[in-house]
């Protein structure tokens, strides 16, 4: 039992199973000083005020506790057009793997349309035997399935390309990624109903927003695992996430997950839209640019502890974070607490699902000294999250999109946490 408290890697990382052993935490409490427990004061014998009067009445739609007002999306809007910009999920304030609907990240090109579902339709046309129009109500009658998957903007984490590490909270750096249970109609069912012709190779999807956002998607992906989503975490999709219909393209760039979906055009070739040429392409040092780099490659980051939080003295902590890959399941996450010299395997929270946020955890004995913590993910294809140096060696510094390098936090002796390039 004592062995579990022996560090398994530098910087005080402990065996990932430590927290799993029942009772062990208590014996650990005697072996190491558990600062967190030590600071809890015993309850006063007087009853708290909220036990001495009836509570608030019911509500038709619940809201977070007023004490959680700081758990919000961070918005960055265009000064000339408030509907153009992004908002980030506060990953640093959240636990588990599912993003609450009100905190799902947003990227709007020209605002959130207010769509009347009775007047919204989805057209499938092009290389099909029968062009078909679907009402939203009719789609509700189709057999549905759920996908537990992340959506990540191709531009997520792009501050990582900057020459100096950005100092902001983890979510406001990496939170253009969120994870939900999306439920809807398998796209293959609708495409088969329209009877696609064999020459069809691509599908152009269009949204019903003021940008009429459009992108081209390979048909084989559309037939494989895409859905026309109607529900997000059990309720109808929020307006800012595509109400009433959103195309879900699991594991691929966020921009392909067209919100407010109104039209699917089967073609032999891509349309070369602005969002697959001018944007969402990655310029390489050679002057050439990567195009149609659909997959969101494996990424991980530590969400706690992370910048914005202050360590509460030396002692036992849990390092936790998120890992995901657009190519399948996460197979391993390793954590380092000595700037990358040694690594220990973190515990992955079950269930580990394909193209879905995966929560990792590892116990850690902080000695109260300056230290650098980081995580790296490996997915089931064997792909390993690269170091920043490796990524820049491969892509240069001006790709803007698809930044997935290892993220490092410096924990200073005074308990402050900052972002560093290590």
């Amino acid at each position, binding site marked *: 039992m004592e062995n579990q408290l022996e560090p398994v890697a530098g910087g005080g990382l402990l065996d990932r199973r430590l927290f799993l052993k029942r009772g062990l935490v208590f014996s650990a409490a005697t072996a190491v000083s558990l600062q967190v427990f030590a600071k809890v004061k015993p309850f006063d014998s007087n009853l708290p005020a909220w036990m001495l009067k009836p509570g608030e009445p019911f509500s038709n739609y619940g809201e977070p506790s007023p004490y959680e007002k700081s758990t919000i999306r961070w918005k960055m809007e265009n000064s000339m057009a408030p509907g153009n910009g992004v908002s980030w999920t506060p990953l640093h304030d959240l636990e588990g793997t599912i993003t609450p609907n009100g905190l799902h990240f947003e990227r709007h090109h020209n605002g959130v349309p207010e769509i009347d579902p009775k007047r919204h339709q989805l057209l499938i046309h092009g290389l099909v035997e029968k062009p078909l*129009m679907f009402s939203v109500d009719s789609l509700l009658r189709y057999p549905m399935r759920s996908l537990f998957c992340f959506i990540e903007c191709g531009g997520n984490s792009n501050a990582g390309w900057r020459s100096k590490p950005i100092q902001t909270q983890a979510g406001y750096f990496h939170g253009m990624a969120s994870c939900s249970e999306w439920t809807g109609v398998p796209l293959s069912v*609708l495409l088969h109903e329209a009877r696609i012709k064999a020459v069809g190779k691509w599908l152009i999807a269009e949204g019903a927003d003021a940008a009429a956002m459009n992108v081209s998607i390979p048909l084989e992906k559309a037939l494989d695992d895409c859905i026309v989503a109607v529900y997000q975490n059990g309720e109808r999709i929020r307006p800012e996430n595509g109400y009433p219909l959103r195309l879900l393209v699991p594991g691929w760039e966020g921009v392909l997950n067209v919100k407010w979906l109104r039209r699917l055009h089967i*073609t032999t070739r891509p349309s070369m839209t602005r969002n697959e040429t001018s944007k969402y392409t990655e310029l390489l040092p050679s002057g050439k640019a990567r195009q149609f780099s659909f997959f969101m490659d494996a990424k991980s980051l530590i969400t706690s502890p992370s910048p914005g939080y202050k360590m509460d003295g030396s002692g036992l902590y849990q390092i936790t974070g998120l890992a995901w890959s657009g190519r399948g399941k996460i197979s391993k996450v390793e954590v380092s607490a000595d700037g990358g010299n040694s690594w220990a395997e973190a515990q992955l929270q079950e269930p580990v699902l394909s193209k879905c946020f995966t929560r990792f955890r590892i116990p850690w004995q902080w000695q109260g000294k300056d230290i650098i913590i980081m995580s790296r993910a490996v997915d089931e294809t064997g792909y390993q999250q690269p170091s920043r140096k490796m990524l820049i060696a491969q892509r240069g510094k001006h790709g803007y999109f698809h930044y997935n390098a290892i993220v490092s936090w410096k924990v200073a002796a005074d308990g402050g946490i900052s972002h560093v390039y290590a």
Partner: protein
Amino acid sequence: MYMRNFTLLIFIMMNYAHAETIQGPNLGKPVSSAVVDRWNRDIFPNGEGLPTGAGSAYKGKIIYQQQCLSCHGVDGAGGSADELAGALHSLTDDPPDKVVGNYWPYATTVFDFIRRSMPLHAPGKLSNDEVYAVTAYLLALNGIISEDKIIDNNNLSKIEMPNRDGFINTFKK
């Protein structure tokens, strides 16, 4: 007993078939080609989908000054929104400058994007001729065509953009 096993067998077989293709209730309504044509606004690099119309940079400049300049700046640079022309650096400089003239591979994309998304405060407001004109203006600003050239649905796709071969398709198809 026999019946029950038999039903079970059929049920298993049906489930197996369902795993291959899920049967929907077939509620899609057939639509006429006229409806499809009204909805379909996709444009392709070979010019397919371009509506009839024409315009020149001269006309386009006036439209630009009234409808675009407030966000995109004088001569397509220096505004709050994306730089459209006047790159100070090349694609291989540090930092590089990406504008329509040195980055966009197809002129048809310029037309398509402006028609569907711009001007930001009033998308869909410009007529096709006006979109051709302002497209011509942006191409002229970028030195790709002369100011007096008339751009239309026949010649737009034939304009060669300098960065036509600047992209690597990292997906296999």
